[in-house]
């Protein structure tokens, strides 16, 4: 069951790299949140109830509902054009993504630790790379935001890999997630939107030498 969920998660990741509409991003983010919720419920069976509740609150309330909602709101408020700007043509992005997927798999295999589920490792590394790729190959701040959210999801997935024994690590990761996401999404993104009208990254690339 977990395997299917994780594969679904990686599918969303691939879709992230090729999608061309902002709305899709928001939806995908929500889907990822939900998938994470499912995985954590299945995986973290031995965890204390309080912790489990906390994690569920995080994944469901925050990742699945609040974040997509905020993203949608930004899209609405800023009246984004549908298609976003890339720094790199789309087909390159997908080639890169495949290469990174391969790289993640190789890394995961060569880690060669039987205690760890290789799939987890592969997908979470892939998620991390996808997050970075979203940031690197896109010019819009909105895409950067989404990239960061994917990165956060990667961290979360990765912390699930470690499993039941280390609730502290997971909890901290979650705290970080909430904290930063809210900060970036809530405070800054809107402020930038107001300041630069179209949230173009070009407006915010004047500091250079």
């Amino acid at each position, binding site marked *: 069951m977990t395997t299917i969920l994780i594969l679904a998660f990686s599918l969303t990741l691939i879709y992230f790299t090729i999608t061309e509409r902002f709305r899709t991003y928001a939806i995908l983010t929500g889907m990822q949140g939900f998938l994470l919720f499912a995985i954590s419920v299945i995986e973290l069976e031995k965890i204390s109830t309080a912790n489990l509740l906390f994690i569920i609150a995080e994944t469901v309330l925050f990742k699945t509902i609040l974040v997509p909602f905020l993203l949608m709101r930004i899209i609405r408020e800023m009246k984004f054009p549908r298609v976003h700007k890339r720094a790199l043509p789309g087909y390159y992005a997908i080639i890169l993504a495949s290469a990174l997927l391969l790289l993640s798999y190789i890394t995961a295999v060569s880690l060669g630790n039987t205690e760890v589920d290789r799939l987890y490792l592969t997908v979470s590394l892939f998620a991390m790379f996808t997050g970075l790729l979203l940031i690197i190959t896109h010019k819009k701040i909105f895409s950067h935001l989404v990239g960061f959210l994917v990165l956060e999801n990667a961290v979360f997935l990765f912390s699930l890999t470690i499993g039941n024994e280390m609730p502290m690590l997971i909890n901290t990761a979650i705290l970080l997630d909430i904290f930063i996401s809210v900060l970036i999404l809530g405070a800054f993104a809107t402020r930038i939107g107001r300041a630069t009208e179209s949230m173009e990254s070009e407006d915010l690339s004047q500091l*250079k030498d």
Partner: protein
Amino acid sequence: METIFVAVLFLSFFLFVFHGRAKYYLTFVLFAVTAIFAVTPAIQVIVSGLQVPYTYSGSLTGGINIVLDPMGALFICMIFFTMLMGLLYAPGYLKNDHASVPLTTRSLHYFSYLWLYFAMLSISVVREGMPFLIAWEIMTLSSFVLVIYYGKERTIIQASINYLIQMHIGFLFLLAGFILVEAKTGVPGFDGLKVYLQEPGGQVAFWLFFVGFAVKAGFIPFHTWLPEAHPAAPTHVSGIMSGIMIKMGIFGILRIISCMSGDYLVPGVIILVLAVMSSLYGVMQAIFQHDLKRLLAWHSIENIGIIGIGIGAGLIGLGMHSPALAFLGFAGGILHVLNHSLFKSLLFFSAGSVYAATGTRDINLLGGIMKKMPMTAGLFLLASMAISGLPPLNGFISEFLIFSGLFSGLASHQVFYIILFILSIAGLALTGGLAAFCFTKAFGITFLGNTRGKLLHTPEEAPVGMLLPQFIIGLIIVLIGIVPMFFIRWIGTVIVTSFNTSIPVDMPMFSGRLFGLIGMISGLLIILTVALLLVRKLLLSGRSIKSGPTWGCGYTAGNPAMQYTSTSFASDYAKLSSPLISQKQHYQRIEEKDIFPDNRTYEVHSSDGIKEKVIDAPGRFITGMMRRLAVLQTGKMHHYVLYALLFLIAVLILSLFNLL
């Protein structure tokens, strides 16, 4: 003693508090106090010929060994004297610019002056790596601040940065030398070098040190900072820099030579060749210059070359176990250090007086200054004769020593060295001739004839404050010429104690007798001249003495602009040396249709080919390359994240191939 030095260092900061004359007096008092406590032991060491170093260790700096040996003592005396003269000269010179230079700059000036003095004193006595380097860089920095005194002009800022960077490169060589020695032997500083030079491969350290010191001294091809920095600095600063600061490079070279214990020949030959080239190149460039201070700066390179010839010859003498050659070479070199510190500072001081009085350093605009400033002119003439190596003055004595050394080396019966020495002799002779050429030009065009250009104000004789130090220096210049034996005896002590040679100090040939005789002949020359002048005066008394216009060979409409200028004086020479040193002409051609040509200007500039190839071209290459490499800070955030990813992947790949 230590507390006094610390107190002086501390009090030097009060220079920023005082205003007006008090600032100068404080500088002077601090200078004098230090001098008393530094120079007294130094003189004791030199005069007593103390062979055993005089040692004490300070507690403030955590026990640095300070060794006052005769060589250091000799340099301390020279530093003291030159710096004192500069300090006496400074206020008169700086007075002209009181309005345009900020007060702080002036405080900074005196502050740096003092610290330059302290630093050079420390360099003379410190033997360990880190303290030595600290003192060395304080010297560089303080002189840098002195150079940038008139920093309002871009050229001056560029010259001083150029100076700083090249000094820093020299410093890096010294740093490499020190850390190499310490890493290999475990003994810090020059004592470690002594140990390391006995090991195979130890020569590397020697050359690291040599390059480091050669940059300071201004051997070619490390000289390129010199002709830029000297004209930029206030004149008395040029005087002390040229007079004593660049000699700290020579001091360093002597110091590392004193650490050697074999293998003298190869370094000796290389230093000799480099020195002959320096002296020739320096003087050949000097002739082209029409900026008086730049001319003098090039002559510093020439004289460093002459000093180097002495040192190189001395080294070869050590290697060939020829005490005569060793003694004469080193004595000539070291005496020339002293001599150059005298006549070069005198030249700069009097040139500074001219600059202060006329507002220009361009010889082509000057002329006829001697009538307005007879004292300054006389002093400049004296120093010109001294620097050209003419008897009866001090420059001759040291060149005589070096010549004698090279001639005595001819007895070595090894063809290679004979040819080397003969060529060095010819080179030195040519250098002397060129120097005379250059200084007849410098003196003749600046001070004689009629004024060529329009001066800002009519020149007046320099005030007593500025003349006094010059007279003192002039006196010593003559003194060394007439009684050289005392000076040579002191230098003999230095040589015997420093280079561990088997030279008997009172070898018959070098005894006072020879130099007593030479001094006597010099005296005779003076007496003869004076006698002839008296005869002339006697004969002329009562006869008609008339004056008229200069004979114009029938042309009656001559004017001052038609006189020979610096450029025309050197034009024949320029043709001769054109394959080696190129000149650039800037002028506007007269076209055929130009029936009534209007006013035109014509300028000639010599270019330093070595500077262009060694400094400018690589500098341009590096900055150009750096500019192309500056692609990271794009302002685009997705690039910034990319760097992280690339770094991650790069390191992973490198580790995969075990490259990390």
